């Protein structure tokens, strides 16, 4: 089992200043550059501490957002490639359906991989729907663009036989020739999946299937992956092919846990603050899903499958937010791990909302010292049900 420290590099202090959406449309007068300087350096420090504590590192990106000031996965990782020593460095992900220039994406991947000594892992993702407003790339035919970009990046990273040309529908290049080429032949590849269909695609490719806050739907998703992986590769999917992301915070006692939980939970309140028209621009979801939403009158994500105003315990049991003392959070993650049939990559949103630096570092340290070794040991043979299935 591997543990990844993740944070979205938010300027959460602006959330209260802004009236309405915290992304896409709020004036950047609320983004104070001096504060941003402090925040960026703080988050980078936390990743360096994570490296020392034995975590791997995950970064993401968003645009025009007080929730995430990382404007480029690769920019953040370029810094960490040099400033960390051991951690695997995961971009999850690079929104290639938003990028006009996949050649540059491939070049940046290769350069980071070389500088870091082959520690890069790459998630190519489509893009959040509201990001299309900034990139100006069309929501329509997003997946066609994604797959052409994906195929191009993989070819560019793995091609060692002199320049090649590319005349696709969306991208055209006369001379693709990566200098440097990556140190790893091809960095380990990841995909984010929230549908069983996509999990099967990831399985066929042998990519790591990562799912975020997927709660009760995770079991079916991971089962689809395992089923398809067995069919495609003739062997069971290793646990490290499956990744799950949740909020995670640890405390020395229940009082401290409650305090840290409350600070982090502000993140969940800020996330939905998206301009209504950009939550789901036409073309992003299929016509069938959009038509079904109209016909049934259902809108948006249904509260992670949790009851209204979920308690801390419901959050943990639902796999949305693990929070506890070392013993409690061990049982929470172990229980969720077993419930979904096992996974080997624990993606931890370990700093979010108003959780300050000292609390963040203490929470990370406590988990690394007292929880991670226990979880590694307890899950080394997989989930009980997968063991039973194998027998």
């Amino acid at each position, binding site marked *: 089992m591997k543990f990844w420290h993740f944070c979205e590099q938010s300027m959460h202090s602006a959330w209260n200043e802004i009236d309405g959406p915290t992304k896409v449309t709020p004036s950047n007068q609320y983004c104070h550059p001096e504060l941003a300087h402090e925040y960026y350096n703080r988050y980078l420090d936390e990743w360096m501490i994570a490296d020392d504590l034995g975590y791997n590192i995950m970064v993401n990106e968003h645009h025009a957002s007080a929730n995430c000031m990382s404007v480029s996965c690769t920019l953040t990782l370029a810094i960490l490639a040099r400033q960390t020593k051991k951690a695997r460095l995961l971009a999850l992900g690079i929104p290639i359906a938003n990028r006009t220039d996949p050649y540059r994406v491939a070049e940046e991947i290769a350069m980071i991989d070389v500088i870091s000594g082959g520690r890069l892992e790459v998630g190519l993702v489509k893009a959040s729907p509201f990001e299309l407003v900034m990139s100006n790339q069309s929501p329509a*035919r997003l997946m066609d663009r994604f797959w052409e970009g994906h195929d191009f990046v993989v070819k560019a990273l793995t091609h060692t036989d002199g320049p090649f040309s590319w005349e696709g529908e969306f991208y055209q290049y006369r001379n693709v020739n990566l200098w440097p080429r990556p140190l790893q032949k091809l960095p380990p590849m990841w995909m984010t999946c929230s549908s069983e269909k996509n999990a099967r695609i990831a399985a066929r490719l042998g990519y790591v299937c990562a799912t975020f806050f997927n709660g009760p739907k995770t079991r079916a998703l991971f089962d689809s992956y395992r089923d398809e992986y067995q069919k495609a590769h003739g062997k069971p999917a290793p646990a490290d092919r499956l990744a799950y992301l949740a909020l995670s915070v640890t405390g020395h006692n229940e009082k401290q846990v409650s305090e840290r939980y409350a600070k982090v939970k502000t993140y969940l309140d800020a996330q939905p603050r998206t301009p209504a028209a950009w939550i789901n*621009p036409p073309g992003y979801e299929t*016509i069938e899903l959009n038509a079904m939403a109209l016909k049934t009158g259902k809108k948006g994500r249904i509260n992670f499958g949790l009851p209204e105003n979920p308690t801390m315990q419901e959050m943990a049991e639902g796999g949305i937010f693990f929070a506890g003392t070392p013993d409690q959070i061990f049982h929470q993650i172990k229980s969720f791990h077993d419930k979904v049939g096992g996974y080997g990559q624990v993606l931890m949103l370990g700093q979010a909302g108003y959780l300050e630096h000292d609390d963040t570092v203490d929470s990370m340290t406590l988990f690394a010292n007292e929880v991670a070794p226990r979880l590694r040991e307890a899950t080394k043979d997989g989930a009980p049900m997968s063991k039973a299935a194998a027998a």
Partner: protein
Amino acid sequence: MFVSPMPDRLTVGGVTFEFLTKGEGRPLLFLHGAHGADADDPLIERLSKSYKVIAASHPGYGLSTRPEHVTTVEDVVYSYLDLIEKLDLKDVVLVGASLGGWIAAELAVRGSSRFSQLILIDAVGAKFGDRETRAVTDIFAYTSEQLPDLLFADRDAGLKAMHGLKFMDLPEEVSVRYARNRETLVLYGWSPTLFNPKLRQRLTRIQIPTLALWGDRDRIASPDYGRAYAATIPGARFELIQGAGHYGYFEEPDAYANAAIAFLGVGRAR
């Protein structure tokens, strides 16, 4: 606008068009707006009293198919040229509203001898003004619930034309039709937002009599935008319709039909 399917089908150039033919007289090709058309659209009804109206759903709209090679307004224009040739329409009146106005203008600049008159109703498709001023309102920045206010002079008229947006009470096909129309609109018009940068210069090629009919309260393509459109097409006339929004032809179909028919020179609608 997006409920009743049209009765006829014709496959040409890989596109199976959903279309209707209504009325007698000179052929009038009606090109619908950004959110689609249906068999009961009021302007089609009014115009069919004096003309043989042919109205289709654009490829990707309604029940018209959109083969993979059709991804832009230019592709749609060639699909319509295929349709016009297949139906062997001659002496055609082109009437296009909103997105359909863009398609009509693109057809007209291609100079087919089959076209004899052009009416642009609250059309989009051309870029006027400087690079820091939007030519056409970003229609995609609004939710469905906001569209009756944005697209019509009057919200109640808008809701009526948009079937109250009561998808839960309407047949499932209506939801599919509406969702499909919106996705196709994004495909054709996302960026540049509902215009072709090349069209403005090409409008000067239009040689057939042209009328630009505009709602005085069009919030998508303003009356000034309409005036610029008319000023660019040689000899084009510009007329305002009072109390009408971008989809004024749903709010004031008689006014639009009367102005169109007067221009076309066959007297007023009965």
